[in-house]
């Protein structure tokens, strides 16, 4: 079981409270987790990855186990703590504000 934490705007959009729990067959990767997430919550399509290229949106970050996984290959296996459900897979809106 994979635990996923969405940023607040996307929790509102998907109408979920707290963490999302996903069952992934095989070794979980960013791609398989995001595919499963979007399959359960189709309204999230396009909000994390580009519809066509499937690339991560520029101001979306993926963190886990105090590491930034955003620039990892989407097919790289996620850390074992994420795969076991010990640690959550965090989807975070990047710090991108502060204009004045």
């Amino acid at each position, binding site marked *: 079981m994979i635990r996923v934490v969405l*940023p607040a*705007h*996307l929790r509102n*959009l998907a109408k979920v409270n707290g963490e999302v729990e996903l069952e992934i067959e095989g070794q979980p990767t960013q791609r398989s987790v995001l595919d499963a997430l979007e399959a359960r919550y189709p*309204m999230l*399509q*396009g*909000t*994390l990855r580009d*519809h*066509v290229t499937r690339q991560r*949106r520029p*101001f*979306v970050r993926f963190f886990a186990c105090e590491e930034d996984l955003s620039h990892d290959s989407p097919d790289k296996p996620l850390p074992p703590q994420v795969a076991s459900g010990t640690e959550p897979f965090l989807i975070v*809106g*990047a710090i*991108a504000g502060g204009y004045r």
Partner: protein
Amino acid sequence: MSGVRVLVGTKKGAFILSADGKREKWDVSGPHFGGWEIYHVKASPVDPNRLYVSQSTGWHGQLIQRSNDAGKTWEPAGNKFIYDGVPGTHMWYDGTPHPWEFKRVWHIEPSLTDPDTIYAGVEDAALFRSTDGAQTWQELPGLRGHGTGSRWQPGAGGLCLHTILLDPSDPNRIFIAISAAGAFRTDDGGQTWRPINKGLKSTYIPDPDAEVGHCVHHIAMNPSRPGVLFMQKHWDVMRSDNAGDLWTEVSGNLPTDFGFAIDIHAHEPETVYVVPIKSDSEHYPPEGKLRVYRSRTGGNEWEPLTKGLPQSNCFVNVLRDAMAVDSLDSCGIYFGTSGGQVYASPNAGDSWAPIVRDLPAVLSVEVQTLP
């Protein structure tokens, strides 16, 4: 009793302002989608409870939401805007070719006859249509592909298709406007398009009379006379009496003919409203006085409308889609500002009062007249 519902898009959410026909006491609902930029909210003219919203953020891109109960509840709709075929290039700020890239939906225009058909004007400029209540979107590629698209260049706000006018007398005729390409018209339901910019003169482009390249800010039409159009260009207020085939300037005695918003009285098609803005580098009213100007003569002769509007130290802007009119017997005029005020006049502009003063910066204002 009749009433109105004002649909406001802001930098940080949507607001719905409701009143009865007197338009004195207002109920304020919102923010809906707090934190998201709401470029536009618009209702279906054939189903007043059907609302469509364009919301976006830099983090999560574009969403379209739909309501079937006048904004009490919302459901996400389709947000997949894919250009038809190989998108090609338009001109970038530096004159080099730049690939077409979808950024956001600026304007939503529901069909005049079918609540499930909606048009969307997007950045980078293109026109999309949905016929299934916004679940899926298809580009009308004849617009970008008609021949001048590779020469379109973005304005400061991006290469945006911001105006969509559906001709109530001819379902095959649609007008659109793009910054900074100009105005375009189709007479065959969106299959083929042609520029309609003859008569526009723009000294900020190399050829002031060019076929395309004009920074059209907004166009307004009175439904009773769809062949007559009024335009607020970057500079100049213009008028066409032949569906855009030829434009003539009607700026007349305006204190400045720069501005964004323009609209027309619901019952008097020669009565036009603009909000003059000092200049393209000073996006605020001249002399710090917020004045709507009204022409009762179809342009050229303008009178300032000031009663109830701040006449000192006011330095807000009024954006292109942030003015609307209702169709009650005494026509109501509404506009929103970058300072978060939404002003209403229940008497065709003679006097004004703020409905709300402290919203986030207002991006768009639409109004529904309810039975």
